[in-house]
C-alpha cells in the first residue's frame, strides 16, 4: 500500500492540462512512498487518452470505458472499484469543478480523509504534508495526514509531465450499478459569448469588488475610453449584474492575454489569476499591499483606486 493513483480529467474529447500536472505530482509522491504510479482514464476515448497519459513516471494506465463524458456517479463507482483492487496509499484527483463533484464521494466511500486544493504535497515515509491556502490566499498552511487519503490538486501548480514514458495500459472492467446513477447530463452550453471578446483585446482595464458600487464603474469606463481599452472584470462584478458574463476574466470566465492588464481593486484570487496570468504586462492598483495580485503584477500602486484612477484619466485623456 504505497502506490499512488491519479485520475485524468477530460472534457468534450480533450484531456485537460491538469491531467499532466497530476502525473508530475503523482510521480514525485510515488518516489516519496516508494510505490508505483497508476493513472486512470474514465469515459470518453480512453485509448487515445491513455496514449497521451503515457508520460515518464507512470507505471500502469487503467482504461475504464464507460460513457462519453464525465458523470460523477460513474467516476465515483469506477475509481472506488479500481482503488479497492489496487489499494493505493493516495488517490490524486484534480481540484477542477468536476473533481470537486466526485472527489469527496470517492474519499467517503473509501473511508479515507480528503484534503482539497493542495498546492504542494510531500510524504516523509508515513505522513503526507499538504500545502494549502486559506482566507482567499492570505495565508498558506501545512496540514499533516497520517493515513491513506484522497487529495485534490490545484491546477497549474505542478509542471505538466512531458516526456513520453513506458507505461503498460490495462483495460479495467468496471461494474457500474446503473440504478445508483442519480444524475443525467443533458448537454453543455457556452455562455460567455456576446458582442465583445475580451480575449482579443490588447489592453484591458479590469475592475473588481474594490469599486464598491455600480455607479462607480463610470470612472472605469472613462479610463478605458481614454486608453482605447476594453473593460473586463473579476467575478463579483458579473455576479452583481454590473457587467455581462462575457466580461469575466478567470477560471469560469475567459482566459485573456493582453499586452497590458490593469487590475483595479481586484485581490487576485486563484480563480481570477487563472484567467489573466498570461498577460504581458500586469499593473495592479490595490489598497492591500498583501493582495495576491501584487505578487504576479509587474507594476503596482498601493493606494486607493478612487484617488489614483481619476488622476490617471486626467493624465491620459
Amino acid at each position, binding site marked *: 500500500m504505497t502506490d499512488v493513483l491519479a485520475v485524468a480529467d477530460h472534457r468534450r474529447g480533450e484531456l485537460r492540462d491538469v491531467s499532466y500536472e497530476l502525473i508530475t505530482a503523482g510521480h514525485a509522491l510515488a518516489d516519496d512512498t516508494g510505490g508505483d504510479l497508476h493513472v486512470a482514464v474514465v469515459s470518453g476515448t480512453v485509448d487515445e487518452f491513455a496514449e497521451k497519459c503515457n508520460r515518464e513516471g507512470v507505471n500502469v494506465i487503467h482504461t475504464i470505458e464507460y460513457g462519453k463524458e464525465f458523470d460523477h456517479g460513474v467516476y465515483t463507482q469506477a475509481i472506488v472499484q479500481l482503488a479497492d483492487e489496487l489499494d493505493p496509499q493516495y488517490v490524486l484527483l484534480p481540484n477542477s469543478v468536476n473533481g470537486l*463533484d466526485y472527489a*469527496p464521494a470517492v474519499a467517503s466511500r473509501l473511508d479515507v480523509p480528503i484534503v482539497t486544493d493542495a498546492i504542494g504535497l510531500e510524504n516523509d515515509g508515513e505522513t503526507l504534508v499538504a500545502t494549502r491556502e486559506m*482566507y482567499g490566499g492570505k495565508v498558506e498552511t501545512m496540514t499533516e495526514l497520517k493515513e491513506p487519503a484522497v487529495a485534490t490538486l490545484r491546477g497549474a501548480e505542478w509542471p505538466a509531465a512531458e516526456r513520453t514514458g513506458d507505461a503498460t495500459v490495462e483495460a479495467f472492467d468496471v461494474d457500474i450499478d446503473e440504478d445508483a446513477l442519480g*444524475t443525467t447530463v443533458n448537454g453543455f*452550453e457556452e455562455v460567455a459569448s456576446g458582442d465583445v471578446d475580451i480575449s482579443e483585446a490588447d489592453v484591458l482595464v479590469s475592475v473588481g469588488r474594490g469599486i464598491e458600487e455600480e455607479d462607480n464603474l463610470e470612472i472605469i469606463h472613462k479610463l478605458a475610453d481614454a*486608453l482605447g481599452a476594453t473593460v473586463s472584470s473579476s467575478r463579483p462584478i458579473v455576479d452583481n449584474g454590473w457587467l455581462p458574463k462575457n466580461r469575466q476574466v478567470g477560471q469560469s470566465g475567459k482566459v485573456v492575454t493582453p499586452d497590458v492588464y490593469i487590475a483595479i481593486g481586484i485581490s487576485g484570487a486563484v480563480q481570477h489569476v487563472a484567467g489573466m496570468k498570461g498577460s504581458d504586462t500586469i499593473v495592479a492598483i490595490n489598497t492591500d499591499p498583501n493582495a495576491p495580485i501584487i*505578487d504576479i503584477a509587474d507594476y503596482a500602486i498601493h493606494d486607493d483606486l478612487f484617488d*489614483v484612477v481619476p488622476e490617471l484619466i486626467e493624465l491620459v485623456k
Partner: protein
Amino acid sequence: MKVLVTAKEVATVENEFEIEEMAIADRYLGADLNEWDDYAVEEAVQLKEADIAAEVVTVTIGPDDCEQTIRQALAKGADRAIRVWDDTLEEATLLDVGAKTELLAAVVEDEEPDLVLTGVQSDDDSFGATGVSLAEAVDYEWAAVVNHLEHDLKDGGASIRRELEGGVEELTDVSLPAVLTIQTGINEPRYASLRGIRQAQRKELSVQDLAALGVDESAVDSALELTAMYEPESQSDVMLWEGSPEETAGELAELLREKGVAQ
C-alpha cells in the same frame, strides 16, 4: 418540501494582520456570513416564495458568537435555525471535511430535508468538499457548483446547471433528495429588511450538542492536522510605485505611453 441550508460564519481578515500560534490573531478578524452560503440561503428563500419549499431551515456549526450571522439568514427569510456546538468543538483547531460531514449528516438525518443547499466552498478554509461529502454520507444525490436551479422541481428531480471552467455550463437533472453546492451569481442575495431583522429575533434558533445529535465525540477528531500557518512568501519582482496619487498615476501614465497605449 423542506430545504436545509448550511450557513457558516467565516472570518474576514484585515489587510494587515499577524499570525499567532497557527491562527490569525483575533484582533485582525471580523465575521460575516460565508459569501457562497448567502447565495444558498437566497436560493432557498426564493424556493419558499415560489411555494416550492414549505420550510427553510439553516444549520450552522459554530459558537455563540455566530448567532448574529445566523440571524442574518433568518432575517432574509429562513424559518428557523439550528446551531451545532459544544465543548468538544470549542477545543478543535481544525474541523476537516470528515468531521463537518458527520455533524451535518446527523442534522440531515433528524430533519430529513428533501433538498440541502450548501455553498460551493467557505471563504476561510476553502475545502470545497463538504456538500458532496455530506450527500454521500446521507445517501442523497448531489451536484457541485450549481449556478442555476429550475424552481419547478418536477417529478422528484431538479434541473440544474453546473458551472464548469471556461464559460461552459453543464445541463443536468438530479433526482431528489439531493445536496446542491451553490455558486455565487446564481441569484441576487437580498439585504435583510428592517422588518425581517425584527422578525428574525423571534424565530427559533435551537442549539444542539453532540449528544443531542447522537454523534460520538470522536467525530470531531480531524484526520488533518494543521502544523503551520504563515504568510506566503512573495516571489514577486513587482515594481512598486510610491508617492501621492498624482505621482503614482504619473508613473503609470508614463508606462502606458511607453507601451504605446496612451498618448
